[in-house]
């Protein structure tokens, strides 16, 4: 049973007829329906700065033939609107002929529950806890000058109606809780940010004073940076901490392994399947099936069940991440990586939870082996140029390493490198694999989707560090 046609003048059988008729000469396509409600509550500068509730209902109608995608979306779920979209799609694909592939495997897999983070707690209780967080964070030290905290909760209901009438459904909860603390001492200001989240109830992050740990961590990072000195500039050894620094793997390698860039041959990896692209011992997977993780999905946004996809195994490139279109054109199967930000966006191959698996070394050994280098514990934003492979990261917590020992914290350190080269320059893979706290949003072609990352500590032979000290 569909939930989308209950309050509409059009019933599902009529909608299905329009879909089947529109797509009969196409290779692929579907009617994607989405109903999202979300709530953002922000505490800033001692006040509840905003309390925003929003609902978004709409459909995206897609027709695909060959390499061509025609897409039309609207907020109005009505016969008139669907017929308009249908005509729009047909006119874009006129003279093209394809063969519709009806087969999408049904699945019962479930990696998250029916939680509704927006409704399960009253607005009042969420406001109360934000105020409590504010008082707690400010009471930590007189150096705390500013506290920002927010709750972002979402429930997204998705239905995918394919030609022939197959209906695939998913209900996706998502929460995120963030604290940012600014400290000031002797005229120097620094900020520390920490957040947690996933596809489950807020309670997991709030009960048993768990929220205090989030405040403590934001405060620790801010305070650490108060004592930071200018970062050195130049090429040196880099030790990456476990967990969130895997966002470097996401940018440096992950994007380059997405099907579209490889089908179009604009990725540096496009002709390297089966070849050695990374050091021995490096295994990287993209996994959509981890319990309650931010990047997990029961089915992707085309209806394909998600899976655990091996990208690189012991240094050898094995697979790309595929949606249906790129898989068809590359003669392979969708890996369940077809995702979109919302019904307003077309599907593209996107990462889910991208993880480097454990090796055998310890972080201690890595640091001990470095004469001069840096230890990067956490990053802010990162970016990659898929074609040249160059990527860049800003460290939000980093330390110098001198003669095998961790030294002062560093400010303003940027790491720049080349994805394919960095993979080959991994000297040691740690045994301390950690997943990130559940905060990642990946941007591609203007679309943001929630993702996860994970890795053990890594030692990279050389990367360029950008700082102000030569």
């Amino acid at each position, binding site marked *: 049973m569909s939930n989308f046609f209950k309050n509409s003048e059009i019933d599902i059988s009529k909608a299905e007829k329009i879909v089947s008729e529109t797509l009969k000469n196409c290779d692929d396509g579907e009617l994607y329906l989405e109903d999202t409600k979300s709530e953002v509550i922000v505490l800033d500068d001692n006040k509840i700065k905003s309390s925003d509730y929003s609902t978004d209902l709409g459909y995206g109608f897609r027709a695909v033939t060959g390499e061509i995608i025609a897409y039309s979306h609207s907020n109005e779920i009505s016969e008139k609107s669907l017929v308009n979209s249908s005509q729009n799609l047909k006119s874009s694909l006129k003279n093209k002929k394809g063969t519709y592939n009806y087969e999408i495997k049904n699945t019962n897999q479930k990696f998250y529950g029916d939680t509704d983070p927006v409704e399960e707690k009253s607005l009042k209780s969420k406001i109360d806890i934000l105020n409590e967080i504010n008082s707690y964070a400010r009471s930590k030290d007189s150096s705390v000058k500013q506290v920002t905290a927010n709750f972002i909760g979402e429930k997204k209901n998705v239905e995918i109606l394919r030609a022939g009438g197959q209906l695939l459904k998913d209900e996706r909860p998502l929460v995120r809780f963030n604290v940012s603390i600014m400290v000031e001492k002797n005229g120097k200001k620094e900020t520390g940010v920490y957040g947690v989240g996933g596809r489950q109830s807020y309670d997991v992050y709030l009960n048993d004073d768990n929220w205090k740990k989030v405040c403590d961590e934001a405060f620790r990072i801010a305070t650490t940076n108060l004592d930071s000195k200018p970062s050195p*500039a130049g090429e040196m050894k880099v030790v990456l901490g476990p967990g969130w620094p895997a966002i470097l793997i996401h940018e440096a390698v992950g994007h380059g392994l997405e099907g579209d860039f490889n089908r179009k041959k604009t990725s540096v990896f496009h002709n390297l399947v089966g070849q050695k692209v990374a050091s021995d011992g490096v295994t990287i997977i993209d996994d959509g099936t981890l319990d309650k993780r931010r990047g997990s999905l029961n089915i992707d946004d085309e209806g394909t069940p998600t899976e655990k996809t091996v990208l690189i195994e012991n240094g050898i490139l094995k697979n790309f991440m595929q949606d249906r279109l790129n898989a068809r054109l590359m003669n392979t199967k969708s890996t369940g990586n077809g995702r979109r930000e919302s019904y307003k966006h077309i599907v593209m191959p996107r990462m889910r939870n991208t993880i480097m698996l454990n090796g055998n070394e310890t972080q201690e050994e890595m640091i001990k082996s470095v004469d001069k280098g840096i230890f990067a514990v956490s990053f802010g934003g990162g970016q990659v140029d898929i074609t040249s492979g160059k990527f860049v990261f800003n460290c939000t917590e980093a330390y110098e390493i001198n003669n095998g020992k961790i030294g002062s914290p560093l400010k303003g350190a940027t790491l720049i490198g080349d994805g394919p080269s960095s993979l080959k320059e991994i000297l040691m893979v740690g045994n301390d694999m950690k997943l990130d706290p559940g905060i990642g949003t990946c941007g591609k072609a203007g679309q943001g989707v929630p993702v996860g990352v994970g890795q053990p500590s890594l030692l990279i032979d050389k990367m360029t560090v950008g700082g102000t000290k030569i």
Partner: protein
Amino acid sequence: MIKEENYLKKIAETCLTQSKKLGSSDASVVVMNSISENVNIRNKQLDGSERSDNLAVTLTTYIGKKKASISSSNLNEKNIYKLVNRCVEATKITPEDEHNSLPEKELHYMGDKELELYDETHLDNEKKIDFIKEAEEYAFESDKIVNTNGSGFSENKSNFILANSNGFMDGYKTSQFTAYCEVVSKSNGSMERDYEYTTKRFFSDLLKPETIGRNAAKYAINKLNPKKIKSEKISIIFDKRISKNFLTNFAGAISSSAIAKGTTFLKDKINNQVFNKSINIIDRGNIIKGNGSRYFDSEGVKVDNLELVKDGVLKDYLIDSYNGKKINRKSNGRSSGTTNLYFENGELSFEDLIKSEKKIIYVNETIGRGANLITGDYSVGASGTMIENGEFIYPVSEITIAGNFNEMFQNITLANDLEFKYSTNSPTILITGMTVGGK
């Protein structure tokens, strides 16, 4: 067809009336419709077409000094009633904030609509495809261009009504035409990409396909076979597409919200020499056909023209009603951010600027966000070209550039080649004394 004023007004009125009935003391509402049509091509073939029709209502209700907001894309009357109710209920339990209020009535915009922000021109998809295909054809004239990353054309039209319970009710149509072409060059095992991009209110003002294609090809070819260079202190020239980002960072640092919270390196710097004496920065909302032009901001407040920096001295902030109250200043119509923000032209021609020092790195691409507005620290990845004695010698890549805005702003020299290509615009600029991280 884009929804007309009367339709949007009716929904706005329903929201305001219903909010009042349910007990809100004040309310403001935006009802917006936008339609955009895009085509994307790759290697001169159609890759995709997209049509989007977006409707949205955003309502903020006040009860005294309490405030809450809702937004929705479902404009069904029954749903609107439900949402207004939810909004008012949320308002009741949200704590008071003494600075919450609608803007003062006397700040409301009341003038004419003479800025020419809407071009009725409609191109059907075939015309859009022809336009951008022609750009790619010009790009492929060079044999070093081997692929495209995709090129596209989009036509956007939107209409909106902003209304509040103090009697403001106004809105207008805008249009935006955009074309871009991104190509891949290849030579001796090196592969690079670059693009040209044009966006205007009026179709006829766009760069021509020939210019778009040839520029994209030229930029991508210029990047081929780059070298890594040694770390050093060196002067950097920022291409116009990068130098405008310094204005965006500057605007973030003088927003009244950052000033009120103290989260900016420019706090308490009003009337101080923040830049050197040669620098003037303007934010002007009333440029005819301007990409950033608007009559009023998202609160209905008229958009003043601002001289933000005069002879290097910081003269003004970007102020909205809420944060303005916190710093005892009236809104200057910047609740939606800057309008057409620009550095006034400098003295030197582009040619003189590149000759002004013996050795300079010309940067035309940066990656990473890299600006910390609290400390003013700046550090990004970059690529560009080495200039020696005024000649472009070889491309460089995989470098980082770093500095601190406090010093960088004092060390800027502007060229005199300002153009109004985006909404934020800068001439080419030179900054001395930056640190480059390389080998």
